[in-house]
């Protein structure tokens, strides 16, 4: 299934950072093969960048919800192990920087200047994107562990997603993450990378233990 014309074009567009074409071709792949996990994920991924800023949080939730099923579809496809791993690597590389970058983008959307400076998006939207993103990172790692747990390369990818999740959770410690704790995921990461040390809560004066 990896050799379809549209999938090749979509991957080329993705490599060229051409979001518009990539979304179009991934949509065609979805129509042609609805069980293609890569197309399912990347269609949602590129859909995030269309529409109004106020919809970002909702579209981000849709993307996060697509992660688990996309990884499952990739695992159950008839592709070779190398192809599956390459697809999972692409998903991890695309999703891991996303949470921080989306949060940064949302925070930077402001109007006015000086003391009149105000955010365009509400704090609840921004917080929701933070929480969704971190939960998505954990879910991505969990899905990879569930379907590719026997492959060390895949587990390294899972650890990459978990590490980003732990790192962000230690910076955004005031929010709730569905009962997922950084300690729990640090233990998981240490099974893959024994030298890993959980990062500290960020900020010199963080009052971290009081929240």
């Amino acid at each position: 299934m990896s050799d379809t014309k549209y999938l090749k074009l979509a991957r080329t567009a993705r490599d060229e950072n051409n979001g518009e074409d990539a979304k179009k071709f991934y949509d065609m792949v979805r129509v042609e093969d609805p069980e293609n996990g890569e197309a399912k994920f990347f269609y949602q991924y590129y859909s995030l960048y269309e529409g109004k800023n106020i919809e970002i949080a909702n579209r981000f939730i849709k993307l996060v919800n697509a992660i688990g099923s996309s990884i499952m579809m990739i695992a159950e496809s008839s592709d070779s192990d190398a192809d599956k791993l390459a697809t999972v690597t692409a998903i991890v590389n695309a999703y891991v920087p996303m949470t921080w970058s989306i949060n940064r983008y949302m925070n930077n959307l402001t109007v006015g200047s000086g003391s009149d400076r105000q955010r365009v998006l509400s704090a609840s939207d921004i917080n929701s994107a933070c929480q969704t993103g971190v939960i998505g990172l954990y879910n991505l790692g969990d899905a990879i562990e569930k379907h590719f747990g026997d492959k060390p390369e895949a587990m390294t990818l899972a650890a990459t997603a978990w590490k980003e999740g732990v790192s962000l959770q230690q910076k955004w410690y005031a929010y709730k993450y569905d009962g997922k704790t950084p300690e729990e995921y640090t233990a998981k990461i240490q099974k893959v990378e024994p030298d890993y040390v959980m990062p500290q809560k960020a900020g010199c004066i963080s009052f971290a233990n009081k929240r």
Partner: protein
Amino acid sequence: MNYTDYLKAKKEYDTQRILEKYQATRDLPRPKTKWVHIVLYAVLYSFFMASAFLLFNLINIPTVRVFVDILFSILFSEAYLRFLCIKIVECYQHYAKEETRRRCLCIPSCSEYAILCFKKYELIFALFKIRKRLYKTCKGDIYVLDFPYKNGNKDVLK
């Protein structure tokens, strides 16, 4: 939001990862200043002040006494208190746990920034700058290059 905006934010993310790596592995200075030194400097300060005021009280010209008192307070106390503040920060650097010091998101770290401020600016101004650094800049999830003086960032990037 369009994809180009996202790519800009992602570029910033890549820079952040470089700074995070630097922050996690940077050398943290451990000066030899201990709490005993702080106590000694504080006692010395009290001694100087007490002896100076005693000396001025022996002079029976009130105008001169007031003038000298004010001048002395401004020049000596301000300089000495800044010196004492630097020593207190160095004492913190000596005793603080590594995990506490690695929390800092800024380059240079907040304690190094405080020392630079005390060396460069007047006490009050330095304290304001340090407060801003601790409560505003070193907060959240963004690693920053932040020096108290102009061109500091350029010096580091060289």
